[in-house]
């Protein structure tokens, strides 16, 4: 039993910013490119510590992305980060051709993603990146669930070769993974065992899924397996297929459009290997709204109650 009141809240972007600093300490080839929001995405920490390895590119996401490629092809390991809406789409052609097709060692941080960026509203609430990024060959796509994991993901991204996109958020979210929890790119973590159904989540819905699973067990004795699918590409087929076989029903939960998102990636694996009923928790084909993160999470049905209800629904279809 997890006691939620003991869990601190820290923004995932802090993990990104700190992770980049750790990398900078370990490797002089780590370079950071700024896109005029270095404070928001916390690469300002790196900038303060390693001013010689920080380059401000201004509001020019296309150029920043492709400059990063030129640096990577010259032996550097550049990180470029902006709001996820602009770090995945304003530069989408550059990501496809110069980053992915070149298989360039470029790392992109997509911050302030999802509806929890809050009052800025729909334009800033990126809910479509996963669909695009997971279709790009050579791309690694990570959506970590809390501060600790984002830090580990960032460090792992900097230490592997090839393009990586890390999607994280703005608001403070429960920091529930431990320092010594294992994090390996491409290997999902099973956070809770169970065979009645599987809940597969990434990003801030992982915590909500854990809470939903706890409610299911406490209220009804239903044992849900909770899987943190932090790496969406390459996807952990093994864990997904096992979940389908063992549990016979899957709920996915993500702060993203349902169409094309993480749940869709899971569905691809499921029907190709072991078809079972699925239910998708996510944004249902609409744009976001201004509001406070918590308000939006519940308005859009990404909270533990929605996941709980989805679990009950899917059990009827088993």
């Amino acid at each position, binding site marked *: 039993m997890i006691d939620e009141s003991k869990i601190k809240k820290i923004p995932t972007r802090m993990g990104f910013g700190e992770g980049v600093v750790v990398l900078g300490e370990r490797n002089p080839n780590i370079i950071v490119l700024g896109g005029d929001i270095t404070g928001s995405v916390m690469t300002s920490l790196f900038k303060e510590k390693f001013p010689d390895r920080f380059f*401000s590119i201004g*509001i*020019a996401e296309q150029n920043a992305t492709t400059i990063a490629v030129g640096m990577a092809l010259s032996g550097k390991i550049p990180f470029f980060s902006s709001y996820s809406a*602009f770090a995945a789409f304003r530069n989408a052609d550059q990501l496809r051709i110069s980053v992915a097709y070149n298989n360039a060692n470029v790392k992109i941080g997509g911050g302030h993603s999802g509806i929890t960026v809050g*009052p*800025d*509203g*729909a334009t800033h609430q990126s809910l479509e990146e996963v669909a695009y990024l997971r279709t790009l060959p050579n791309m690694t796509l990570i959506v970590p669930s809390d501060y600790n994991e984002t830090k580990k993901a960032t460090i792992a991204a900097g230490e592997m070769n090839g393009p990586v996109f890390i999607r994280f958020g703005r608001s403070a979210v429960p920091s529930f993974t431990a320092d010594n929890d294992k994090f390996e790119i491409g290997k999902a973590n099973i956070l809770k065992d169970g065979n009645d159904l599987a809940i597969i989540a990434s990003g801030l819905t992982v915590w909500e899924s854990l809470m939903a699973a706890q409610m299911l067990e406490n209220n009804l004795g239903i044992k849900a397996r909770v899987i943190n699918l932090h790496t969406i590409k390459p996807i952990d087929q093994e864990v997904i297929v096992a979940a389908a076989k063992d549990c016979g029903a899957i709920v996915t939960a993500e702060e993203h459009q349902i169409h094309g998102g993480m749940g869709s990636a899971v569905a691809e694996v499921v029907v190709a290997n072991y078809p079972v009923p699925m239910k998708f928790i996510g944004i249902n084909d609409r744009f976001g*709204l201004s*509001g406070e993160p918590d308000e939006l999470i519940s308005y859009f049905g990404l909270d533990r109650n929605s996941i709980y209800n989805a679990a009950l629904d899917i059990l009827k279809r088993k």
Partner: protein
Amino acid sequence: MALEISFSDKTFTNTSHTLQEFSEISLELRRDVIKSLYLAKSGHSGGSLGMADIFAVLFFGGILRYNPANWQWEKRDKFVLSAGHIAPILYATLARAGFFPTKELATLRKLHSRLQGHPALDANLPGIETSAGSLGQGISIALGMAMTHKLIDRTDQLVFSVTGDGEIEEGSVWEAAMAAGNYNLSNLCWIVDNNDCQIDGRVHQVMSIYPIADKFKSFNFNVITIDGHNYNEILSAFNTFKENAKTSDKPTCIIAKTYMGKGISFMEDDYKWHGMPPNEEQARKAFNELEKMQQQIKSLNL
């Protein structure tokens, strides 16, 4: 005592011409900006305040032709806010022009408000011509409108658009500039809010856009550089543009030298106010400063 916020019903007409009138209007707009941002607890104070004088002249000095009672009036001029983050000054201006009730300014950035954090077409707020929020897109939308009016429908409608100075670091903006020159869009007025501030610092340090005037000239624009807080210069620039619209074959760029946070001493020219709202204490101080200024204007009898 808790700070109580209310919005007067006062609206202004599009017929101002004295400095006193403009001063009073822009004071009211600045007050609205502070109020709505204080209530919202997030949002962009600096740029909104910095553009208050230009908005006052554009909307209330007989420049932009619009009709709040029938805002979708087919023959209206268009105003496109490309720098979507300074929505608070646009909302204040539209409310004070009578597009919607001023008390709605209290709903800025709240769930289901028509005053979304960035202008949102799907929120159905009268006066909003397009959604905005991704820098650089609005100016191309303005271009599409200017092309429609001048080259397709052949009406005399004018199109005004405001971009930030950080915003013109975006490459798409130069695609727009190139096409505006190429198509001789003399009905397009592009206002660059040149406060030399963007989120990470001074524009000339984050990524220099200078020399701005030379750039726009080389993209075949008429360029007018003004003090963006001097009503005479603003008026005269807009009038020159209106003249250009008839006689010139070039679009007009008004480079307005402004100060971020203009009007509130502790915000002025400080890029940290790009994206911050005032807290209670700051809001109080701001209201006091604006009140003092109001007295001054009255006593000076401009």
